[in-house]
């Protein structure tokens, strides 16, 4: 653990001096926290939605609105859309950090001296991975916490507030989020082994958000219902996927692979 923490501290002290990385890590949580709060504020406790009924919601969604008024259900519908967008944070932030961290080392030729130290492959991958994933997970949790407190301060009804503590939200934020971060880091490692420019790696690895966007548009159109069951399946699926991706990433991070096969 000692070498892992040494590496993580070095990564953070170096990567966060990069304005592009800092911008991504700072701007995304800010936007994804502020937007739903602004939406709730605009929609208000009632916000002109007094005439809206649960019948105005997609039928599949309406069943999640037990105990909520029509207006609250409408608010809950929009806020639930943001849940999927919250998942962008544990996907995009690690990609950005890992791309600059790993590809940056390739381009500055610092990998070989690093590999020459007693650090093991697992420590190296864990250090780089955690340095990329932890800020993303922390940003996600912090944003959710700020959103929940903000919603309370905006006077959102107790029924809606209780929904935010629903297992769906808790599993999504505290389980799926970290699993997405691991997947994102592993994907970034694989991409980074083949490209030599951090921005190219960032753009290619950013493709990892596509499945999430599909899910988002599926929910908006009513084709998919994001509920506890779906979120649980996501968690299970991601666990398996993470195991596979990590195995690939560990293989790619072997010293000989890095020195002889990385472009």
């Amino acid at each position: 653990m000692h070498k892992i923490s040494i590496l993580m501290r070095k990564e953070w002290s170096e990567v966060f001096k990069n304005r592009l990385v800092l911008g991504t890590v700072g701007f995304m949580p800010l936007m994804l926290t502020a937007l739903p709060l602004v939406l709730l504020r605009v929609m208000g406790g009632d916000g002109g939605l007094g005439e809206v009924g649960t019948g105005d919601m997609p039928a599949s969604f309406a069943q999640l609105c037990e105990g909520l008024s029509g207006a609250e259900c409408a608010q809950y519908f929009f806020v639930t859309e943001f849940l999927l967008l919250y998942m962008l944070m544990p996907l995009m932030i690690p990609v950005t950090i890992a791309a600059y961290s790993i590809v940056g080392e390739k381009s500055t030729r610092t990998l070989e001296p690093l590999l020459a130290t007693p650090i093991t492959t697992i420590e190296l991958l864990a250090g780089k991975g955690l340095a990329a994933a932890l800020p993303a997970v922390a940003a996600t949790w912090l944003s959710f916490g700020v959103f929940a407190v903000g919603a309370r301060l905006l006077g959102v009804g107790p029924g809606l507030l209780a929904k935010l503590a629903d297992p769906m939200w808790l599993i999504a934020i505290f389980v799926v989020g970290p699993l997405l971060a691991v997947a994102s880091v592993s994907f970034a490692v694989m991409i980074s082994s083949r490209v030599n420019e951090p921005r190219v790696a960032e753009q290619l690895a950013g493709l990892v958000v596509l499945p999430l966007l599909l899910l988002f548009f599926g929910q908006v159109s009513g084709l998919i219902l994001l509920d506890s069951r779906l979120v649980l399946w996501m968690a299970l699926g991601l666990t398996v996927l993470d195991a596979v991706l990590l195995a690939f990433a560990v293989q790619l991070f072997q010293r000989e692979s890095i020195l002889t096969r990385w472009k």
Partner: protein
Amino acid sequence: MIVTERLGKRFGDLQAVEDLTLRVNAGEVFGFLGPNGAGKTTTVRMLSALIGPTSGKAWVAGCEVGKQDGELRRKVGILTESPGLYDRLSAERNLEFFARLYEVADVAGQVERYLRLLGLWERRHEPVGGFSKGMRQKLAIARAMLHEPQVVFLDEPTSALDPEAARLVREFIGELKHEGRAIFLCTHNLDEADRLCDRVAVFRTRILALDTPAALRRQLFGRSVVFHLREVAPAYADRLRALPGVSSVQIVDRRLVVGLDDPEGNNPQLIRTLVDAGADIQFVGELRRTLEDVYLRLVGQPDAAETS
């Protein structure tokens, strides 16, 4: 400190290193010379446990390569061809990071020691990105030494250095040698290798020759004396060839280049013979073969003396 037995490395169809057997002792500076693509970097990577061999065995600082790699890396220091430093971190932070990875007990003390030794202490807080090539090279040398390794691999240590800095580094290498460390030096600066190295190996996938620089010069070229004459006639060469102890005579412009086993013993007889033959001798000297001549002869290029 370094022992290899028929060490080899193959990448697919390419045999990068073949049948490498050598020994480097403590307190020795060993030069490893070869053209680009010869396999020198591959050899250093195997011996520093960065990549594994595909054949043969090696032991470095008492650790077997491929079996005790973690412990081996604690005992060796390596200066890679490219310094490889973190531009956004200061010189001090760069060294502190590596000192911690190498589990150095007194991080601050070692960092200060080597920054002062290499003349970088006053610039320790500055980001490395603003350093000149020479300063980066010195910082990379400091990084290789932080954990006081018993074996040091240096790849082009004086490249990009001004003469003063290069001299400082050469003196530093000399001190390392006197401290009993084994130094494995890869360099294209053959003059430097000639000055620093106790023994050298000329290498191209396999060892072409291995010995002290003086012995290699004798083995390949013997010793030669050059007579600078006002005018050269073939008869002079014929007279010299008939003398005992003369192995060869060449006419090069207005010079006679005479191969001898014992110049000190034979020179008086040669001079008398030439004077008797009517030659006007302007100058006599021994032909100084360089390590460059040895290297070029071994790797298949015409040597400098023959073309001058």
